[in-house]
Structure formats: structure tokens, C-alpha cells
């Protein structure tokens, strides 16, 4: 190859990287504008809604909260108490003890006065068999509670058991360690009951980070910004993702994922499509994609809704080791889901789902870490070859950095002007400061975890869920 050919190749690569970055930034701008509009509309629509009637009405639809638990002995009793303290009238709670090796079941039996009952399970979805059986409380105060002890089969398997057990029309699938606010169910069920011309198949909620928050008796008492920089950075990241990203995709009816931490599903559709996939680590995304795919193939009008209110609070990883393990799993889940449903991508038969949501997810979520890594390697090679045009490199690097800071600040504004959860003095400044630091303290690790996820997906098939250590929300009580 002569020098001119190399120059042409280099030029093409430059334009490709530039074009990708430009497209990514443009999409973020468009999404934040759409999310702004959607948030304003949402707040207007809900500024005069009376939730009290739905709350107390026996006519309101019944919901089953399904919470899988695996070795959650540390906080299981408190967490179940929190789930039982919801204000909605028609709901029950199914705790699926997924073959825990600790004393979770014993603790639940003791705390809630449980006894074994004969319960015939309609096994619409294949799951691992029961271990100790099905338990209900002798105490009428806990009549809403049911505990199912089964052999270990993973989170998806446990959720499928919950789907089999539930007798209600709607199921709320949540992580047992999540703190659900008392009004969460009536807010989340609203889209199912309100939209008359379209079938709502699922509703997702915002997940907020509860580390350092004060929680008492299963209730959120005080919201604090944690001291740990990693957790702080994740708060900012969640604000961006939930208040800017997902809100916009909700408007476009293009949501591909509802957080596994909290989502409500139409049980019939969830079962019809075969329930949760036990072979993926990204079961929360996979089921949504499959449900959407089913509805598209049936030619039915449908919607995946989204509620921006801060209704579900969870514990975020506070060490880089656990954080990387979590993000590694998310990456593998995304790869598995997109690969499994690749038929949808760029397929006009699936409408905007195939032509917009899937391609966006593929290009800007799935491929982003790979393109970024290739870009970094390419830059290093240019440095070595002394081919870097520094005035270009520095000016665009600085521009990209400023954009990321500004985008985070927009997310902070979105939070401040809507739900305003971080009220304490000085928190606003800390969040802005965090916007400037986050590209250095969080992003490199996200990138590393994503690359590790790709590597593990292709070369280390044995790895499944990875490590997730819980400190426990109640332990942060002060």
C-alpha cells in the first residue's frame, strides 16, 4: 500500500468516528428535547389526578408483587415488611425463595408466622420444582403474603414460578431488596387502566439509588446524597438514563427495557410469550423485547408505558469490583437479547420497533463500547506514528467533555424542576461538580466492564450472574 492509500483509509476512519460521535450527540440532544416535552405533559396530566379512589376501590384490578429472593437473609424480613406496607387495596405479595442456602425461609416463617399450605400450581411456565413448598401466614395481618420455596433456578426461573402462582391480571416483578413507595402500585397501574385504544403490555418505573438514605419501618424517611463517589456518580447516571433517556423512548413508544428492579406486566401476555427466559442474564430486557415482538407479529396496537415518579429505591454497588460485575452482566444481557431477536433489526415489518428502537440500541448501546475502544486504540496508534493533529484532537476532546457535562446538568435540572428529591443545601453544587468528575470516575469503568462483558460473552460462557453483595438498605438507617 502506498502512502496515499493509507491516507485515504485514515481519512475514511476519521470520518466514521466523527460521524458516529456526531450521530450519538445529536441523538442525545433529540432525546432530551423529547423527554422534556414528555415530562411536562406527564406533570400536567397528573397535576389533578385523584389517586385516592383507585387506592381504596375494591373494583381496582388486583396485582401480584413477585419478588425473587436468593440468600437475602440479612434483610428479607424488613424488605417483605416494606412490600406489605403498600397502600393499594387489591394486591398480594409472592416471595419466591429461589433455593437460598441461608436461613431466609426460616426467618420468614418465624417473622410472619407462616405455615405450609396445599397449593395447586398451574404450571403454565416450566420451572424448577418446589423445595419446601408453599407457605401462608396464620396471622390475618399478613394474609397478602405467600412464600414459595423452590429449588434454585435463577432469577428468571423464580419470576416464572411467581407468574404461575399469581391469580391476578397484573404482576409487579421487583427485586426483593427494593424499597417500594406506598403509592407505587396505583401510579404504575394507571396506564393499564387509562389507555382505551391500545393494549398496555407493561409499565416501567424510575429506579432511584437508596444508599445513604434514611429508611425506617420499610419507609423512605430522608433522601441523602451518599459520600461514596462511585455511588454519587451512579445517581447522576441514573438521572440521565431514566429522566432523559427512557422518558423520551416512552414518548416514542420505543422502550426496549424495563428495569428488573420494578415493572408491572400484563400477566396474560407475559405467559403467552413464554415468561422470562432462563437462559439469559438480561431477562428484564429480553421479556420486553419478546412481548413487543409478539404484539407486532399479532398486529395488535400496544404500548410499553413509563412512569417517571421516584417510586422504587434500590441499593447501588459501592465498590468498583461489584459495579464492574453488574455492568458486565448488563452488557452480556444486552448482547444476548439483541442477538436472539436480530430478526427485528432494520425490519420494516416491525415498524418503529424494528427501524428505530432496535437499531438505536444496537448502534448506541451495544456497539458503543466497542467503537469507543477501537477509537482509543486507533488514537494510541496515531500517537505512536506521530500522525495526531493535536489541534483537532484537543478541541474535539474538550468539546465532547463539555457536552457530557452539560448533558448531566440538563438531567439535574430535569430532576430539580420535577421531583426535587435532593433538597438539602449544597447538594445541587455537589451534583454539578459530579457532572464534571463523572467522565473520569465512572465512565472508564463502565467502558471496561462493557468490554469485559463482550469478552466474557464470547470467550467465557461459564460466567452467569456474577457477584452482587448487599449491604442492606435498612443498615444505612441513621
Amino acid at each position, binding site marked *: 500500500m502506498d502512502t496515499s492509500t493509507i491516507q485515504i483509509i485514515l481519512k475514511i476512519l476519521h470520518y466514521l468516528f466523527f460521524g458516529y460521535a456526531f450521530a450519538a450527540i445529536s441523538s442525545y440532544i433529540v432525546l432530551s428535547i423529547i423527554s422534556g416535552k414528555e415530562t411536562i405533559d406527564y406533570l*400536567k396530566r397528573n397535576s*389533578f389526578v*385523584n389517586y385516592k379512589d383507585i387506592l381504596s376501590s375494591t*373494583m*381496582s384490578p388486583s396485582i401480584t408483587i413477585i419478588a425473587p429472593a436468593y440468600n437475602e437473609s440479612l434483610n428479607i424480613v424488613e424488605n417483605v415488611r416494606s412490600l406489605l406496607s403498600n397502600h393499594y387495596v387489591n394486591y398480594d405479595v409472592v416471595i419466591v425463595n429461589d433455593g437460598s442456602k441461608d436461613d431466609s425461609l426460616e426467618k420468614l416463617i418465624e417473622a410472619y408466622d407462616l405455615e405450609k399450605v396445599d397449593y395447586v*400450581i398451574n404450571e403454565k411456565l416450566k420451572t424448577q420444582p418446589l423445595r419446601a413448598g408453599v407457605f401462608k401466614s396464620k396471622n390475618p395481618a399478613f394474609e397478602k403474603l405467600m412464600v414459595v420455596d423452590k429449588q434454585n433456578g435463577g432469577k428468571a426461573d423464580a419470576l416464572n414460578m411467581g407468574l404461575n402462582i399469581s391469580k391476578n391480571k397484573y404482576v409487579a416483578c421487583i427485586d426483593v431488596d427494593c424499597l417500594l413507595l406506598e403509592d407505587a402500585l396505583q401510579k404504575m397501574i394507571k396506564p393499564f387502566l387509562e389507555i382505551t385504544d391500545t393494549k398496555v403490555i407493561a409499565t416501567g418505573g424510575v429506579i432511584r439509588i437508596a444508599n445513604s438514605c434514611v429508611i425506617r419501618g420499610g419507609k423512605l424517611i430522608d433522601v441523602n446524597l451518599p459520600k461514596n463517589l462511585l455511588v454519587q456518580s451512579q445517581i447522576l447516571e441514573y438521572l440521565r438514563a431514566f429522566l432523559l433517556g427512557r422518558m423520551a423512548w416512552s414518548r416514542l413508544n420505543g422502550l426496549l427495557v424495563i428495569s428488573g428492579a420494578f415493572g408491572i406486566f400484563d400477566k396474560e401476555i407475559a405467559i403467552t410469550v413464554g415468561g422470562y427466559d432462563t437462559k439469559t442474564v438480561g431477562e428484564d430486557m429480553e421479556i420486553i423485547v419478546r412481548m413487543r415482538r409478539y404484539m407486532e407479529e399479532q398486529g395488535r396496537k400496544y404500548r410499553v408505558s413509563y412512569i417517571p415518579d421516584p417510586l422504587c429505591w434500590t441499593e447501588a454497588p459501592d465498590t468498583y469490583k461489584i459495579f464492574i460485575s453488574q455492568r458486565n452482566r448488563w452488557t452480556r444481557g444486552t448482547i444476548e437479547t439483541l442477538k436472539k431477536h436480530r430478526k427485528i433489526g432494520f425490519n420494516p415489518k416491525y415498524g418503529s420497533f424494528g427501524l428505530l428502537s432496535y437499531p438505536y440500541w444496537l448502534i448506541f448501546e451495544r456497539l458503543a463500547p466497542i467503537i469507543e475502544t477501537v477509537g482509543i486504540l486507533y488514537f494510541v496508534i496515531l500517537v505512536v506514528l506521530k500522525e495526531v493533529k493535536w489541534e483537532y484532537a484537543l*478541541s474535539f476532546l474538550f468539546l465532547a467533555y*463539555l457536552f457530557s457535562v452539560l448533558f448531566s446538568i440538563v438531567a439535574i435540572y430535569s430532576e430539580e424542576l420535577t421531583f426535587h428529591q435532593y*433538597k438539602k443545601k449544597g447538594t445541587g453544587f455537589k451534583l454539578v461538580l459530579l457532572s464534571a468528575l463523572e467522565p473520569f470516575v465512572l465512565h472508564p469503568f463502565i467502558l471496561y466492564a462493557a468490554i469485559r462483558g463482550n469478552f466474557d460473552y464470547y470467550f467465557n460462557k461459564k460466567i452467569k450472574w456474577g457477584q452482587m453483595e448487599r449491604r442492606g438498605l435498612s443498615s444505612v438507617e441513621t
Partner: protein
Amino acid sequence: MIDFQMLIEYYGESPFLIKLAWITSLVLSVSIILLTVYLKFARTLLRKKEVDSLKFRAAYEALLIEYIYSGDEVSIISDNQKRIIDELKPQVLDRSKRKVIISVLYKLMNQVSGEVTDAVKILFKESGLINYALKKTQSKKWHVKAKGIGEFTRFKIESVQDEIKKHLTHPLREVRKEAHFYFVNLFHFEGLTFLDTIKTPLSEWDQIQMLEILQRFTNQEICDIKPWLKSSNDTVILFALKLAKVYNQYEVKDELMDLLSHKNKHIRIQVIEVLTHLYGIEAKDVLKANFTELSLEEQISFFGLLEKLVVPDDEPFVEKHLFHKDFEIQLLALKILKSINIDKYMGLSELPLHEKSPAMLKLTNTN
């Protein structure tokens, strides 16, 4: 010292893309600085608003409680009440104070009854709050309009019903819904006349809310729901079915029987459930005769009805469906058989394993 001259020269000599990048960076930097400064201001303002709101709330709560309890039996409103109204008049001019007054007033309205409620209504009218609510209903912004109607509903202002009536067919659901709630809240069952003509769908959410509103009233004498059961609007039928169930409307059984052949499956299922609730034994033979033509959901609902209204004569029918393709029906059939013929039910346990239905196997394993 920064050599600005050198920077300007560098900028002047730079290619277009670099110039563009630096200009954009400058714009972004300025935006970040301005937004950071404004964030401080906005957060301070939000905190101040919250503190003010609490302060106003405490002050108005005291004043409005005094208003409510200073009525006398001589006149509609006492001199002290007049004084308080005069005191409030200039306050309602301020938007944030008005908001707090309305909120406190509504809270108090919910805690009182009878004549005291009338006193609250007088305050709403005399203080000028009614004019602001009226202005809201005439706003071009739909959410303001809906809020205005909501205020009239909350304070039960009947005099504006003609104005609200205009919004019963508003193209936006939120406005329409508030108008519906206004009439149901103020005129109870009589307020439901809009159901006679409504063409737009009533969401499940709206139906539940209207039922809750209706159930709050002491006078539970329900109007004739038959016309709504024959409505061309499916959601009106569904609402009427809910009314039939909640208010035990045995007299509409004929209409319910007719609805068993309605084209909408969801309605048919609901009818079976209402008939189950109303002990609609007449439905049993009709559904039995058409059982194979029913959808699976209808069949399950019918077995629900049978579970409640079964008689020994139904045994052959139940027995026939012990091996139905659906597990739930198998289970219900077993349960029903157990209730009418325990010997036959016990006899099923003698069946060889390969002849048992999945439900029988499950029951055997569970027990």
C-alpha cells in the same frame, strides 16, 4: 499572563472545523456556568417556596378554621366570617397564596358537613376564588381548564353546571373526565345522564373513580341502568355492568341475558361474572348449551359461575369436563365435583396414573 493576541491569531489561522469546535465549546462553557449559577438560584427559590408555602398554610389554616367555626344561626354568614372573607380577598390575588388557600380550604371541606360546607362555598364565591376557577375553565390550555373544573367539583359549586356541561364532550380525555366527575360528584346518579349520549370511551380508571364517588353518598337509590346496558358504547355497558354488580341490580337480569351474546368478548365475560354475583341461574342452561362455542376465558368464567350455582343435575356436565384441555377448568371441574358428589370425586384417585388429568395428578402430588 495569557497572550490574547496570540490566541486570536491562532484562532484566525485555524481551519473551519477547529473554529467551530472552539466556538461550540465556548457556548457550552458559558451555558454550563450560567446553568450552574441559575441552579443555585432555582434551588434556593424552590426551598423558599416550600418554606413560604408551609408558613402560609399554617396561617391560613388557623384563619379558615376560625371562619368555619364562627358561623351563627342568625344569618347565613356571621360578621366575623365577613371580616375573614374581606381579609382573604387581597390574598387570593397572589397565585401562590391562592393555591395554598384552595388546598387548605379543600382539606377543611372534607372534614366538615352540612351548613358548614355551605359556609365554605360562600367563602369560595365571596373571596373571588370562583372567578379564578371560572377563568381557568375558559383557558385555552387544557390542563388549566381541567384544573378549573376540578376546583368546582371539589367545592361543589352547582351554579356553573351550564359552563361545565360544554366540556362533557371535550376532545381531550382529561378535560372530559373532569367534567364527568363534576356531574357525578354534584348530582350523583342523576349526574350520569351524559352516559345516554357519550360516544367517547370511558376508561377503566374513570369508571372505577365514578363508582367510588357514587358509593360515598348516603342516598344509594340507583337510577335505571337498563338503557346503558343497551348502549352502543361498549365502555358504557361495562360501567353499567359494574353498577349492576355493586348495587345488586337483580331487575336487569333479562338485559344481562341478552348481553351473553354481545359481540365484545370482554363484555360477555363481565356479564358472566355479574350473573355469578347476582345468582343468575337462568344463564346456566344457555351457557351450557353453547359451551363449546365460548372462548376459553368465557368457559373459565362459566365454571366460576357453576362453582357458585351448581346443583346435582350439573354432575354429567362437570364430569364431561374433568379432562378439558385447560388446566384451570380441570381443576374447577374437580372442585365442583367434590362439592356435589364426594364419592365420585374420591373414586377418581383410584384411576391409574396415565388416565389422570394433569389437575388430578397435581392434586395427588400436593396432597
